[in-house]
């Protein structure tokens, strides 16, 4: 029972970061109906900018965070301008392939500036975990859950309490009708990319600071986890993205404990396969019309 609770706490913490990654992915998918493969690499580029600042100026986390945020947002806006804005009316595949090309570009850029395989990142928390009854709880896990809850609340407020948020929801509902209502869809689109990158950067920052290391693999890892969590929760639903992220975190933590690390990733993908094959009711499995 203690093991189960301990795994659940660890899984929720990992799941909180997956939820944030999935939220960013879902915003872009909802507004553009396009998958942005270089979502994760843009976060990775931000982490590299922060690592570079850490190596050269020994800056603290309070400086590194805005550096990472700014670099990720810029990279996200760059992706929108280059890979998505030119193909707005074109095919979804064209934009996806273009975003893959930028993924390669970002990885090349990162490894040119910092060619090592692995770099240290300043820790989120120094000192040991907290003991709560028979459980040991890492402070990093608490920070991750707290930040994720706060970020979800802020995003909800932005989407449901502001004029910008209403415009975003209108574009998600029907881009043609949004344009006819006087909303500039291109202007919303680039802001959404910037916002998605910012949310991703918050998740990525917590992840690299909790793991105290940065590798170029962070890009692919973030895209895969975000995509997987988004699909588990049903494509394009924001509450679904949060639920999918938490489910993925819990599933990974428990399967790693009971089945071992080899089966951990396998189980997550297998679950997605089963849910898609069974056409789970919350998933958008209708064929395109």
């Amino acid at each position, binding site marked *: 029972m203690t093991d189960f609770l301990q795994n659940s706490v660890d899984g929720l913490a990992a799941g909180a970061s997956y939820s944030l990654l999935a939220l960013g992915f879902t915003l872009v998918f909802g507004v553009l109906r396009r998958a942005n493969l270089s979502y994760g690499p843009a976060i990775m580029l931000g982490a590299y900018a922060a690592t570079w600042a850490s190596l050269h100026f020994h800056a603290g986390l309070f400086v590194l965070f805005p550096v990472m945020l700014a670099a990720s947002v810029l990279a996200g806006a760059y992706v929108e301008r280059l890979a998505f804005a030119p193909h707005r009316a074109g095919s979804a595949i064209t934009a996806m392939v273009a975003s893959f090309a930028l993924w390669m570009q970002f990885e090349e850029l990162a490894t040119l500036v910092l060619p090592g395989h692995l770099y240290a990142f300043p820790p989120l928390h120094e000192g040991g975990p907290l003991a709560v009854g028979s459980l040991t709880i890492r402070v990093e896990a608490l920070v991750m859950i707290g930040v994720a809850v706060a970020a979800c609340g802020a995003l909800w407020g932005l989407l449901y309490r502001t004029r910008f948020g*209403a415009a975003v*929801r209108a574009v998600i509902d*029907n881009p*043609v*009708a*949004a*344009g*006819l*209502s006087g909303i500039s869809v291109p202007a919303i689109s680039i802001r959404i990319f910037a916002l998605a990158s910012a949310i991703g950067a918050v998740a990525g920052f917590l992840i690299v600071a909790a793991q105290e290391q940065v590798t170029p693999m962070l890009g692919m890892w973030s895209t895969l986890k975000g995509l997987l969590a988004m699909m588990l929760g049903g494509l394009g639903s924001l509450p679904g993205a949060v639920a999918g992220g938490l489910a993925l975190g819990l599933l990974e933590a428990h399967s790693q404990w009971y089945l071992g690390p080899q089966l951990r990733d396998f189980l997550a993908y297998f679950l997605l396969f089963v849910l898609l094959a069974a056409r789970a009711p919350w998933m958008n499995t209708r064929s395109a019309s």
Partner: protein
Amino acid sequence: MLEIRDLVTAYGTIEALKGVSLDIAPGSITCLLGPNGAGKTTLMMTIAGVLRPRRGTVKFQGEDIAGRAPDAIVSRGIALVPENRLVFPSMTVLENLHAGAYQRRDDLAPDIERLFGRFPRLKERSAQLAGTLSGGEQQMLAVARALMSRPRLLLMDEPSLGLAPLVVEEIFRTIAELHRDGTTIFLVEQNAHMALQVASHFFLMEQGRVTFSGNPGSLAEDEVIRRAYLGA
């Protein structure tokens, strides 16, 4: 008010508009008739900026607006009530109305009060999600949303499509009222008999071209209606 000249819009290599020219006088109700596939919706979508024309001009109050983005066209005073309504289904009725006034920064409350007076059903359902409304209510909402931008020219694409006869009458009563209040209206309608009762002028479109124009009550009316329905 609106002068369209030699407008060509194509989907790939297929030209849906093959050089359309027509004029709409300020303060009029102009009706566009024609069989399915004649290009009526394509013309509306091109005027509203959703589709970009290959060639030709669309002059609104002297300015060529052909090829501009939809939001730029709304800001000039043109609003389209699109075919099939296209309300925002996961937003409330009130949020839909606010979205229609996205470019306005002034107080919306008087406009919303007036529209609720005209469409009492929308007031009753103002907090309800638009996707849960009936077809007729959604059509009312689509008209009200377009009016929230305070257009000088209102384009309406098949506002009576799929609606019960009583609701259709309500829609046409609304069109007549809007016209009395000074809005110029350009209407696509399959329901030719209803449309010609309110219209001051009409055009017939066939296979991407304007083939006839005239006034209701003229001798050619029966012939035009026959061609609009039968496409012959």
